[in-house]
């Protein structure tokens, strides 16, 4: 019977299945960060257990780490303790790779996994972090788990779960200039809603997805969780192989050749059946901007914020009203008339080299608007930062008035000092516009790196497509 990519990955990892369909799934790669692991390691210690296979672990500190003045360490003592706890746990229990605070390779866990080759096609990848879906861009089964599950994987190298349903999101056609994987992700969420993918593994396919770079595919799979799906997937192809070849932890020599043969089957078979199919036309997608407090509250940049009076369903109307109140927006206000206070280019959604290049191309030769209080670029990892500096992108950003920072999660969730103050409005390349996400009372608009860069220059949202070809 023809199988989906998800069916194959699932089947390849079932160790045992209970009568009710609950299965024991073998885990190949375990990514670990400081926020969701301390209680898991503590649980292991209390039970007198050891990691089943410490060499499956790749760990880093990213959520709490500061993005400036690294020579001063981590000033917040509570954050520091959490990072030091990870240091101590890795020292005690071991890992294949550990990239601690201030290591030149340190970065956001979902950026360093792929760039080091720790994420490979055909693997199961877990992390105590919902954006683990990112890694599915490599044709692997990647999912976010809770801390009890982190402990379970540490102790048993397995996860207990039931199989999800299959969803296919097919995007055919060509994305227009200035329209990115981020816009595609937001458009999909706008279509199916933040619970649309709940209970499904989403495979992204179609010619528009095939022509995305690995960076773009990662952005897309990253946001699968924002559509409710634990797992996002893209089939393996030449683009995948080109990205992986020569990565430090990727196989080489004869092993590479064998691996490539094994990876050839990591796609959905012709005629495989999906429980749900959603189709979008790439050419119809415009740059997207979220206006509300959920990623599904999104419109095109040339559109307007909704008018609750036009919403017939009372529950929806109330949700719109509440979001407009929180966001301090007027009903039916044009998106282009929304002014921002801060701009954040970073996060596991959009902090890879390609994102920084795209943002820099918009910024080059221009200046950040005087009304902007802070525009910052936070590279996803040390490697991304070094690469960007080799290309002179840091100078482009600095010359324009952006702050150029050290890698980490930063203002994506504001666990460190980078945050919005109450009432501040931000154009952000991150993934969540929830109330308070970037700081208590802060207001987040999710956009692509290009759109964030343009908002920094103009001071308000602009359609970046109008700037194309007008290099300064």
């Amino acid at each position: 019977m023809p199988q989906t990519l998800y069916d194959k990955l699932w089947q390849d990892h079932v160790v045992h299945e209970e009568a009710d369909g609950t299965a024991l799934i073998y885990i190949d790669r375990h990514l670990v960060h400081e926020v969701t692991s301390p209680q898991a390691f503590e649980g292991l210690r209390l039970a007198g257990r050891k990691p089943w296979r410490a060499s499956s672990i790749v760990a880093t500190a990213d959520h709490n780490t500061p993005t400036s003045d690294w020579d001063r360490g981590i000033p917040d003592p509570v954050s520091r303790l959490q990072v030091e706890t990870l240091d101590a746990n890795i020292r005690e229990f071991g890992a294949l790779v550990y990239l601690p605070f201030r290591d030149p390779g340190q970065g956001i866990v979902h950026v360093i996994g792929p760039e080091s080759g720790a994420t490979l096609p055909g693997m199961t990848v877990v992390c105590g972090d919902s954006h683990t879906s990112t890694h599915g861009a490599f044709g692997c089964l990647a999912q976010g788990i809770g801390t009890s599950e982190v402990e379970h994987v540490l102790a048993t190298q397995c996860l207990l779960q039931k199989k999800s349903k299959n969803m296919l999101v097919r995007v055919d056609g060509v994305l227009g200039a200035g329209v990115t994987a981020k816009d595609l992700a937001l458009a999909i969420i706008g279509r199916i809603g933040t619970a649309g993918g709940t209970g499904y593994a989403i495979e992204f396919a179609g010619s528009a997805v095939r022509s995305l770079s690995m960076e773009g595919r990662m952005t897309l799979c990253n946001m699968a969780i924002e559509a409710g799906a634990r797992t996002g997937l893209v089939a393996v192809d030449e683009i995948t192989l080109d990205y992986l070849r020569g990565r430090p932890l990727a196989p080489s020599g004869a092993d590479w050749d064998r691996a490539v043969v094994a990876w050839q089957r990591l796609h959905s078979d012709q005629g495989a059946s999906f429980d749900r199919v959603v189709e979008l036309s790439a050419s119809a997608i415009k740059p997207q901007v979220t206006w509300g407090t959920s990623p599904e509250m999104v419109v095109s940049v040339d559109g307007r914020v909704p008018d609750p009076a036009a919403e017939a369903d009372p529950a929806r109307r109330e949700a719109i009203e509440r979001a407009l109140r929180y966001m301090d927006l007027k009903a039916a206000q044009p998106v282009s008339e929304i002014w921002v206070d801060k701009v954040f280019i970073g996060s596991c959604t959009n902090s890879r080299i390609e994102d920084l290049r795209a943002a820099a191309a918009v910024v080059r030769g221009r200046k950040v608007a005087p009304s902007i209080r802070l525009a910052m670029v936070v590279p996803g990892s040390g490697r991304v930062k070094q690469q960007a500096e080799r290309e002179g992108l840091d100078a482009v950003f600095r010359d324009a008035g952006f702050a150029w920072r050290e890698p980490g999660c930063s203002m994506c969730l504001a666990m460190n000092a980078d945050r919005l103050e109450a009432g501040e409005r931000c154009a952000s390349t991150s993934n969540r516009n929830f109330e308070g996400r970037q700081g208590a009372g802060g207001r987040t608009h999710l956009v692509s790196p290009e759109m964030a860069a343009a908002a920094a220059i103009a001071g308000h949202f602009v359609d970046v497509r109008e700037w194309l070809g007008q290099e300064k």
Partner: protein
Amino acid sequence: MEKFVRLEGIVAPLDRSNVDTDAIIPKQFLKSIQRSGFGGNLFDEWRYEDVGEPGMDNSQRPVKPEFVLNQPPYQGATILLTRRNFGCGSSREHAPWALADFGFRALVAESFADIFYSNCFKNGILPLTLPAAQIDELFAAVEATPGYRLTIDLAAQRVRRADGEELPFAVDAFRKECLLNGWDDIGLTLRQADRIRAFEEKRRSEQPWLFA
């Protein structure tokens, strides 16, 4: 893990959809390396006037009287009634830890986000779903009767209303067994250690690059 067999308790209504885990427990409290002590900061931004930070004495902070958990009829509530897609967003298990620490043992909603849903079962919390129409009725009943109570019988998979009406709900057999017995699933899985080892050895010989 604490067993969950039968629960009779006060229902607190949280009448909104898409409640995310950032709202359930804001990020500043994720810096803790403990599993407990999160209850005082459950729904922190909705519950208090000021911005909470770890280490504050919550009893001294100004509360928002309009927030449901601050209202007298819902003191001591053990059941949270809410709408669609509860627990979406971040995978932080601090969310169920905070709910449990506050005193909630059961959540009744139209739907839950996947990761949050499984996190609940690991912490002795029963998240159960009912059809939208029944959720609407329950909200109406709670509003009409402050201090409204429900009985949840996990073994029978029934929610019993005060008027005697019974609402059946579905739950996976395996998860139900674990909750009823308070089983630690790591212990259960380790009984399969031989199977895991055999699987691992086969995989290692066929795809050695996965074990580099």
